[in-house]
């Protein structure tokens, strides 16, 4: 086969296209993979619906708790459902099925049941849709053991992590930061390209300060790291990618090198993911720290409608730069 005929090794895709592509590839690969969700057509999964039809892609009524429960029942009986809840705040409606059933049934049945289900939800904030839609609610689910929780920050990680999640035998909740939807990059076309669950990635190597950035915080963190680099300040940006189980080793190794840690998290400050990471480092790597750990988080206030009120609530590139300078 000539090179011109060969399938290219990579293709350019956006964050959201990568999610659709991952699902299509996995549904092609394994007929046990099915999709459930509301208004699939308008949330990017219309392509899946068209391609696989209504026996593989189930367009649901607005009944979050029960269609999540049905996905759990289907998972226990041989299917591998993906549930697209569209907005992550809608997961609140389905907490009984996600937390009390999906996360617990393998354990509570002494290993008899497997629940290979993926729940997807978009973190849809900084868009003037006010408090009820805008929550970055992953910390609440982090407190429910039994779930695996992923939060990809690049199209490549989206594709690779979602595919790993679909192939995993445990329930996985994926939070998709909508501020990353339009990000584009080259990503592998290999249908077996996977990003492992539970493995962090250093997105920007450095030696002076470690920044651990969660989900959409990756964007301002990388911009800040690049700006500081021009001033000779070397920032290491770590992307956990998986929030549960956390890759503690990569974070601790980075802090061992830099001695300084800033954790950036758009979730509300109390008991957020940054709090967990700060606690892990304080407990396990206190000896490495040259300065106190700093968390940059959304304060404990509801997300307001007015953009002028909302925008300042999330850690910005400038706030990150100022904080890094303070730590040095």
């Amino acid at each position: 086969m000539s090179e011109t005929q060969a399938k290219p090794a990579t293709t350019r895709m956006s964050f959201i296209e990568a999610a659709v592509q991952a699902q299509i590839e996995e549904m092609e690969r394994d007929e046990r993979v099915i999709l459930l969700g509301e208004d699939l057509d308008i949330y990017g999964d219309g392509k899946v619906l068209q391609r696989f039809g209504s026996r593989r892609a189930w367009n649901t009524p607005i009944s979050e708790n029960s269609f999540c429960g049905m996905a759990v029942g289907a998972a226990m009986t041989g299917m591998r459902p993906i549930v697209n809840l569209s907005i992550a705040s809608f997961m609140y409606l389905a907490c009984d099925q996600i937390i009390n059933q999906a996360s617990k049934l393998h354990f509570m049945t002494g290993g008899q049941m497997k629940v290979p289900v993926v729940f997807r939800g978009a973190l849809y904030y900084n868009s003037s849709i006010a408090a009820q839609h805008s929550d970055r609610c992953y910390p609440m689910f982090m407190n429910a053991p039994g779930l695996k929780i992923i939060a990809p920050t690049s199209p490549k990680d989206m594709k690779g992590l979602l595919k790993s999640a679909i192939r995993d035998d445990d329930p996985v909740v994926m939070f998709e930061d909508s501020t990353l939807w339009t990000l584009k990059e080259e990503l592998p076309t290999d249908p077996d390209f996977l990003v492992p669950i539970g493995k962090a990635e250093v997105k920007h190597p450095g030696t002076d300060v470690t920044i651990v950035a969660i989900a959409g915080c990756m964007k301002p963190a990388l911009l800040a790291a690049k700006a500081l680099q021009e001033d000779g300040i070397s920032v290491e940006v770590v992307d956990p990618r998986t929030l549960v189980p956390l890759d503690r080793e990569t974070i601790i190794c980075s802090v061992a090198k830099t001695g300084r840690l800033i954790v950036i998290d758009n979730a509300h400050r109390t008991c957020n993911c940054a709090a967990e990471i700060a606690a892990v480092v304080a407990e396990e790597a206190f000896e490495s720290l040259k300065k106190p750990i700093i968390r940059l988080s959304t304060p404990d206030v509801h997300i307001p409608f007015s953009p002028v009120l909302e925008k300042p609530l999330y850690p910005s590139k400038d706030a990150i730069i100022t904080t890094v300078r303070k730590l040095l």
Partner: protein
Amino acid sequence: MLRIRKFEEEGTRLYKEGQIPGAYHASIGQEGAIVGACMALRDDDYITGTHRSHGHPIGKGAKLDGLMAELMGKVTGICKGRGGSMHLADSSVGILGESAIVGGGIPLAAGAALSAKARGTDQVGLTFFGDGASNQGTFHETLNMASIWKLPVIFFCENNRYAVTTSAASSHGQPEIWKRAQGYGIPGHTVDGQRVLAVYEVTQSAVDRARRGEGPTLIEAKTYRFDEHQVGLSTHGEPYRSSEEVRNYVRNHDPLRLFKPELLKSGVTESEIQAMEEEAGEAVARAIEFAQQSPLPEPGDVYQYMYVNPINYPPLHRGALT
């Protein structure tokens, strides 16, 4: 029915003696509804149930040893001591689990039915739930989805008249629960839950319908629990049900007593019935012996069964307790 009755009588005794920890919800009085429904199912059909979880697995054919060992929190328990009294599951006979969250098991059974439909098998799902659960959102949401997708699922309500202490009459805008089916465009039936053969017949016709691809059915079996909501539960103030009412059900509506004349009429002899009673008693006694002699789980193994595929788990940390 005999096995359930004997299991529950002995279980109650063991609970009072402190040999069974936690809470104990006995199914005594509801055996006809449970067994009549399970008789209409195959081993590869699926059920989900409730916190009153001992009768359903026995009715579906689970072995008693693992159930009794589970109640005692032993490592040989069907759920390895992780589930206990309210959560008996046995995948070998299609019991997906018993949800102690009221109404929680309803969508699971419909999901199993969706799975059967997607896989192209003729299996059905049946979910047991109480009168209280018919006020949960999952009941209404799932009936609706099962209807639009014609899922092979049977919604089986064991209406024992009381959600703990709250009567159906005082908590249901439409206390005839079977009539709620109409709102979702599916058939609804009511049946005397104390008559095991009547329950079997109505369930069998719903199962046949589901296997033919014609969709779900709601069945309301009117039944009664002879014991308190849970063993040892004390209530204050005015009793929520009168002792005359309880006596009336125990005397005149015991599913075992009501079935005996039917058995005799069909040619089964007194001595054969007695042999069955003895066999049930012996099976329960063997299960108790097995459970009592079984080892307890190792505390260090507590993390087992958290994940099918554990990653970085359990994490080692300085504050670790175990």
